[in-house]
């Protein structure tokens, strides 16, 4: 009986035309595929591969379609920092040049550092008329011109004299202030103390950095928005020993030497304090706690960090 039923069932589902069903009708239990939302789609060729192989295929495909090239390419005209900064010898410009140590310092020339010599050779390859004898004067001129532009807020010219890394350091906080700076005289002739060459992104993308030691006398007066003196004094010349780094994009034939930064040694004397008093807030206390030592809101003379 089961076999008969099965046969009957099969007969019902069979393709043979019968009186109950016309010949062209669809079979009664046909699975109609329903189109659902297209979810995770893995193509045939990727189904059997392991994740590592899949990644490899993707990488190959990505290489085959390069992304659109940048329509507005940006141009790196300076490095981000001073490479291998010069460590000034302690007591520089303090000792008299007649003592033995002082004499040694004066005699300590560029030739002693091999790296600087190598860099000098590389710089001379790209800039044939570079010389350690003539460069310091030009560097000092650039230095003076840059500070004059800063005092006059001549931003266009300042950009051509100072690299993009140095510009914000010079200009920050000065928008609503008046700066009066003047160069009185140079106490010692400036000289080159350190040269380095480095490249970023490609090994052929060369930037040269030259450190020049300058011992000069300058006056600086900074006035705030209301014309009140904030720092320094116009009639007070100060002796300043500085190690200024100049940089140039060597590969660019139209590159120029521009000020890149200054090196401040650790043994440098502290700067003068600013004229006003500044409050340094103490630790935030609850109303139940008390101030341990008696320092409620004492004003201290704070040295302005630039």
């Amino acid at each position, binding site marked *: 009986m089961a076999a008969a039923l099965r046969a009957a069932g099969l007969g019902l589902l069979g393709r043979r035309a019968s009186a109950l069903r016309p010949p062209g009708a669809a079979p009664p239990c046909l699975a109609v595929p329903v189109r659902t939302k297209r979810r995770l789609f893995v193509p045939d060729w990727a189904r059997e591969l392991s994740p590592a192989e899949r990644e490899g295929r993707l990488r190959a495909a990505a290489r085959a379609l390069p992304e659109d090239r940048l329509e507005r390419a940006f141009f790196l005209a300076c490095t981000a920092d001073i490479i291998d900064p010069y460590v000034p010898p302690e007591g520089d410009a303090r000792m008299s040049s007649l003592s033995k140590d002082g004499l040694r310092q004066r005699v300590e020339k560029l030739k002693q550092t091999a790296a600087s010599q190598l860099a000098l050779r590389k710089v001379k390859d790209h800039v044939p008329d570079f010389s350690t004898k003539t460069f310091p004067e030009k560097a000092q001129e650039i230095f003076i011109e840059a500070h004059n532009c800063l005092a006059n807020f001549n931003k266009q010219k300042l950009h051509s004299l100072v690299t993009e890394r140095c510009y914000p350091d010079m200009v920050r906080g000065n928008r609503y202030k008046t700066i009066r700076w003047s160069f009185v005289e140079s106490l010692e002739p400036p000289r080159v103390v350190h040269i380095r060459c480095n490249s970023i992104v490609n090994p052929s993308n060369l930037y040269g950095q030259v450190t020049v030691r300058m011992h000069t006398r300058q006056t600086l007066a900074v006035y*705030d928005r209301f014309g009140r003196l904030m720092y320094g004094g116009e009639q007070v010349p100060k002796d300043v020993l500085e190690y200024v780094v100049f940089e140039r994009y060597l590969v660019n034939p139209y590159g120029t030497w521009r000020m890149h930064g200054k090196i401040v040694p650790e043994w440098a004397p502290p700067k003068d304090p600013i004229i006003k008093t500044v409050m340094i807030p103490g630790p935030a206390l609850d109303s139940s706690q008390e101030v341990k030592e008696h320092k409620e809101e004492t004003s201290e003379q704070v040295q302005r960090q630039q």
Partner: protein
Amino acid sequence: MAAGRALGAGGSWLRGLLGWARPERWLASSSVFPLSCIHTSACLQKVGKWEKKNRIVYPPQLPGEPRRPAEIYHCRRDIKYSKDKMWYLAKLIKGMSIDQALAQLEFNDKKGAKVIKEVLLEAQEMAVKNHNVEFKSNLHIAESLTGRGQYTKRIRYHGKGMFGIMKLVRCHYFVKLVEGPPPPPEPRKTGFDQAKEYVQQLRNRTLVHTL
């Protein structure tokens, strides 16, 4: 050939997959990258006249001149409060020193008092940080004004299907802090002073076109 076809198909799949994920669209519009060089930064918002008053720079003072007191202008725009109600608070603190004003506002029950207190604290901090004011308590309020902000209209539903149009009222608050102790209040004009003035006016009369 099969591999090439697969790669081609895979490439189109990849392009489709990555087509939506272009890095330019991830970055903010005011960046260096191409295809979205729309410059949408603060310059499109109009800077008000009161804010611009903080940008004037005076020439350096000569050594003999008296020290110019610092002036700090600050404002807050579009406060959800009525300008007439805010006026009472502005009039209250006009002429006070900043500490006294802060104390009065802290214990005032109006909604605008909290807002004005925030504005004064912001202005005080700005003064010390940006405008070279030495002592934060050495400030007094020289001017304190309110102005009308932008009003929006909304429907106020009444009974029986009636409606009214209500205005959502906003105001601006402006304050000018000046360095130094507050100026002494003007003495009130007494009756005797008024009488003296009247008599003086009578005495100033002259006769014209007569002998």
